[in-house]
């Protein structure tokens, strides 16, 4: 797996995490979100959108599945659907580098 560099990651990348309510799937996604934010130590912001509370946001972004982690700053948007607990894989997909660029974490 190659780590592709974000061409211009910016100081504060912004992702959105769409979840539905607070079922087990949503809870797991929210825990993963905290770990990702921690991992990048302020290099990323992840907004949480509960589609049950804000269906119009889901409509605007065209969200069908939850959980969906979405980077809407790129064209076209990049989306990761389902399980986001593998942080290396998530950051890799969105093109972020971990703060210490160490691959080892658990």
């Amino acid at each position: 797996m190659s780590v592709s560099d974000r061409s211009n990651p910016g100081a504060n990348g912004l992702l959105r995490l769409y979840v539905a309510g607070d079922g087990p799937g949503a809870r797991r996604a929210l825990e993963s979100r905290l770990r990702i934010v921690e991992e990048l130590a302020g290099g990323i912001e992840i907004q949480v959108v509960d589609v049950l509370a804000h269906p119009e946001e889901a409509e605007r972004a065209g969200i069908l599945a939850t959980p969906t982690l979405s980077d809407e700053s790129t064209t076209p948007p990049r989306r990761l659907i389902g399980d986001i607990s593998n942080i290396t894989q998530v950051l890799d997909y969105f093109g972020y580098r971990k703060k210490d660029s160490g691959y080892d974490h658990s």
Partner: protein
Amino acid sequence: MTTAEEILIDPVLERVRTGIEAFDDLVMGGLPRGRTTIVGGTPGSGKTVFATQFLAHGITVLDEPGVFVTFEESPVEIEVNMASFGWDIRRWREMNKLVFVDASPRDHDQMIIGNFDLSGLLTRVLHAARQAAAKRIVLDSVTQLFDHFVAEQTSVRRELLRTATALKRDGLTVLMTAERNSEYGEISRHRIEEFVADNVVILRNALDRERRRRTIEVLKMRGSRHVEGEVPITLVVKQGIVAVPLSSLRLEQQSSTKRVTSGNPELDRMCGGGFFRDSVTLVSGATGTGKTLLVTNFLAGGAAAGERALLVGYEESRGQLFRNARGWGVDFEAMEADGRLKVVCIYPEAQNLPDHLLMIRELVEEFNPDRIAIDSLSALERIAPETGFREFLISLTSFIKKHEIAGLCTATNKSLVGGQSASEQHISTLTDSIILLRYIQEGDFMHRGIMVLKMRGSEHDKQIRRFTIDGAGMHLGQPFDGAPDVFGDSAASSA
């Protein structure tokens, strides 16, 4: 502890009219309220039209707003594509009678890992339904949803079922379209109908002898009855889908004993006092035997009796028909000017059979005639596959009878002497009366002969009578002495 939560099933399911009249008849009044119906069809079979019409009827006629969930075309594309059917989707959206959920493909990169659900979709649909206070929901087409999550078929099945169940719980009537690969293969790709549908409807657009033949068929109606078999449909500008019913399903037309004139007193006598008012008579004969003359007499006789007469001509132009009539002393111009006659001529090839039938129905409803003549059925026959023609004839004759109109249709024999035309075979059991016009050889002379072969519910002259044609029309003469063969090939039978 769940019995109280189970959805109550009313023994008599309330019906939601689709607005496709003859289709609603097939399903005993409409789609059951609060149920899910799958409408399957190959590309171009009219699924989106059907779905939009279902919403349109709710919005414009029954004040039942709707939600259109589109997985394929964008809302704007649907607005444009459906405009020709007379549906002002933009206005409905402005009035909040129709709300779109735009799930059409958007450009994005996507990766799926592990489990997910489609709560995003469900929430959006429920939100849209609340916004519009919707009663009807369309999902067009769910096959696209499967294609969107192509590696996750099991999850999509589970989620689609969850979505359908949630919509049902809210009392919404759901119509899902699904794609099919072939006209007579499996019901839908991904076998969607197996897990999600209470009812299954199939739209077909089959190629039959180089002609397209559109039909609709109800395959399954959970918990209620429906009429089986394919029914022809056609797509009509400003209307949408129009199903052309086989009205023989409902033999409700009564038989009257009121007689009307055939336009020829001598023929009236042969028929035992004229044609019946709500009956269809077939005039069959080779070319030049006098079929169009009988038609002309029929129209003129009606007009003279103060009736209104309609002629649908498929063989000759208006000019020719008017000239012919003048040659027999009948003035079509004056009859039209008096509003007693309407003559419509059209090439059979101008449209397909269901459209011809619709045109005749519209003409009848508009002009409200007491009698109608169609000259000839054989001309129509050449544009139609056999099954289609039979359905057309059944629909036409039952329509004519239902409106208590006296009908006269002609059929042309291919051979000059004797013989049967195919339309004669098809229609002979459907018409009430049959009149044969034949060339009959007697020694060195070729005569014209006329006979009343069948006259339902009445005595009639069984003889074969000679007749002649001159500038004043048709004159019946004496019966033939011998026993001419009017059915077979006379040359062959004499050999």
